[in-house]
């Protein structure tokens, strides 16, 4: 999951990384109060779970509590990079001498963590990597050894971090290493890492992305997710153990196997439709899972038609059919449902669905074409 800046900063602070004093606010009035408490001059920053906020105008400096209130009023009316702004972090303004970049992230190609630093902070690191790669230091961490202080010294030397900052810099590196391990992080980023006039090396921004696979040993994430304003359907799917992603279209999709479902989305798009979601019922799904999956998709008000696309290997088509019928039992079907079953017990599955509102499709392509047509015939409010 991606943490908001204010959530990440709380964890950074707990790991010993200095961060500016700040308060989370949801109204212009709260912003004014916070600014007053923080000494008047503050930064007002929108909280969205995605980067590139600064460029999109999501950060304002305010010289006074009144200024903070005005900035908050303006920002809270905005939508930034697709996210409606509903909360702001008001932080004390700190006098900055120099800015750096520091992160620890997973490098899939090398199958290990990579420590990245630059003497240019506050930049878009991908852009810098493309345009001036010599300004970036990179050190890969051998997983059998783990992060050591020499890695920090090495990346500092490559990035041109001044020697006199080496002590606190190494400390920050070891701290983000600790955060990575403790919070099962895929990305820990400090950008900018700022040297203040008073000599402290602090995290002005904080980015933290954790590994969903480790959620079973992090019950505390539950509260953070919920604070982060997760979509209610995604939350429900998570609680029900369904692999579901909410998308922006209107064609509901259910299938077995991530690759098959992704390809189903692609085929729908190819036919001119827009998928409303991704939902993988996994391998060997029982009727009950299928039932819950269909209920979830039908509860999405954006959905105007649904495609169920199953290739039976370990999964049995008759079991899927039974789940579908259970889901519809006693429920008014408000949208067209297209079903394509192939593979193990295909004939049995199809037979079960005869005479039901579920419309069969013979092939993958035909199914995609049909559901897109039905979706546009549907409520019609979202073609």
């Amino acid at each position, binding site marked *: 999951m991606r943490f908001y800046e204010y959530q990440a900063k709380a964890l950074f602070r707990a790991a010993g990384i200095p961060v500016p004093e700040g308060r989370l606010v949801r109204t212009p009035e709260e912003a004014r109060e916070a600014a007053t408490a923080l000494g008047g001059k503050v930064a007002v920053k929108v909280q969205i779970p995605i980067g590139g906020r600064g460029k999109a105008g999501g950060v304002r400096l305010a010289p006074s509590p009144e200024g903070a209130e005005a900035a908050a009023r303006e920002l809270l009316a905005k939508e930034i990079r697709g996210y409606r702004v509903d909360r702001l972090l008001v932080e004390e303004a700190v006098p900055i001498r120099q800015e750096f970049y520091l992160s620890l992230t997973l490098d*899939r*190609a090398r199958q290990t963590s990579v420590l990245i630093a630059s003497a240019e902070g506050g930049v878009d690191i991908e852009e810098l990597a493309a345009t001036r790669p010599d300004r970036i230091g990179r050190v890969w961490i051998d997983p059998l050894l783990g992060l050591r202080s020499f890695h920090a010294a090495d990346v500092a030397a490559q990035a041109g971090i001044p020697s006199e900052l080496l002590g606190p810099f190494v400390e920050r590196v070891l701290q983000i290493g600790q955060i990575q391990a403790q919070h099962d992080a895929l990305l820990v980023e400090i950008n900018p890492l700022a040297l203040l006039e008073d000599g402290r090396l602090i995290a002005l921004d904080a980015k933290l992305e954790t590994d969903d*696979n480790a959620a079973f040993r992090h019950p505390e994430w539950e509260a953070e997710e919920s604070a982060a304003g997760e979509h209610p359907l995604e939350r429900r799917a998570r609680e029900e153990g369904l692999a579901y992603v909410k*998308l922006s279209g209107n064609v509901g999709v259910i299938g077995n*196997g991530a*690759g098959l479902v*992704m*390809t189903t989305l692609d085929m729908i798009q190819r036919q001119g439709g827009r998928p409303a979601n*991704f939902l993988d019922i996994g391998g060997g799904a029982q009727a009950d899972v299928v039932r819950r999956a269909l209920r979830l998709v039908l509860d999405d008000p954006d959905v105007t038609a649904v495609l169920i696309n199953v290739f039976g290997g370990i999964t049995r088509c008759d079991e899927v059919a039974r789940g579908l019928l259970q889901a519809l039992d006693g429920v008014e079907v408000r949208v067209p449902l297209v079903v394509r079953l192939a*593979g193990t017990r295909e004939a049995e599955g199809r037979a079960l669905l005869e005479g039901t509102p579920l419309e069969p499709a013979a092939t993958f392509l035909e199914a995609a074409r049909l559901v897109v047509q039905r979706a546009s015939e549907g409520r019609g409010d979202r073609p």
Partner: protein
Amino acid sequence: MSILVNRETRVLVQGITGREGRFHTAQMKAYGTQVVGGVRAGKGGQEVEGVPVFDSVRQARAETGANASVIFVPPAGAADAICEAADAGIELIVCITEGIPVREMVQAAAYVRARGSRLIGPNCPGLITPGEALLGILPGAIFRRGPVGVVSRSGTLTYQVVAELGERGLGQSTCIGVGGDPIIGTRFVDVLALFEEDPETEIVVLIGEIGGSDEEDAARFITQMTKPVVSFISGRSAPEGKRMGHAGAIISGGTGTAQSKIEALTAAGVPVAETITEIVDLVAARL
């Protein structure tokens, strides 16, 4: 011939006493795979589906001469199970488990490399050499023997492709699902190198998806191959930053897009099918 597994492969099942382990042990045996033992600490001495159970991989290997292991251990213990297999000198480790934390997988994958073993997966369906051996959860019945090597990051999508290949009379030398996680033990380039050396394999089908750069790496490798490769990429419609089922299927920071992979493959002379049926057409045209 074939790659990695054949009728001589002697297979252990780690986590054999669990529901999945038990079910697929029966399936693998029914297919004809030599399942020589199972492992579950504390259950040594029992039998599951006619297979003797041992307390540790080391012990199981010593008693059975196993050289491969299939892992059905739940996520919290699966990385440990991989390390145990590597520590005991198992040559081929196939991890089916989905949902292993990345931190543990990074370490386990490195440990397997350090020990000189090979890991397939995790979060994969396994692999099959039709008519000889099935290691994992693939539905054996849809496969038939033939000249097509298949390598894929997904499960069900691959079955769909294999079924359509079968309808056109095109069988497989070996079919491998390398897994849908960001950290996997064996990647496209590794499998392509094996298919290139396998006399039976005449053409390779590569089924990729969004996330990471394994398809781009594969494209570079294919320019050095003598055998034809055709491909398919799923996830053209996927948005950025969303994990599409597979932990590894995610576009992040603009990298790992279907577009990037399709361009790399096309530039390497590898045809990229638009639909599954088109994959089969591409294969048929090249044999």
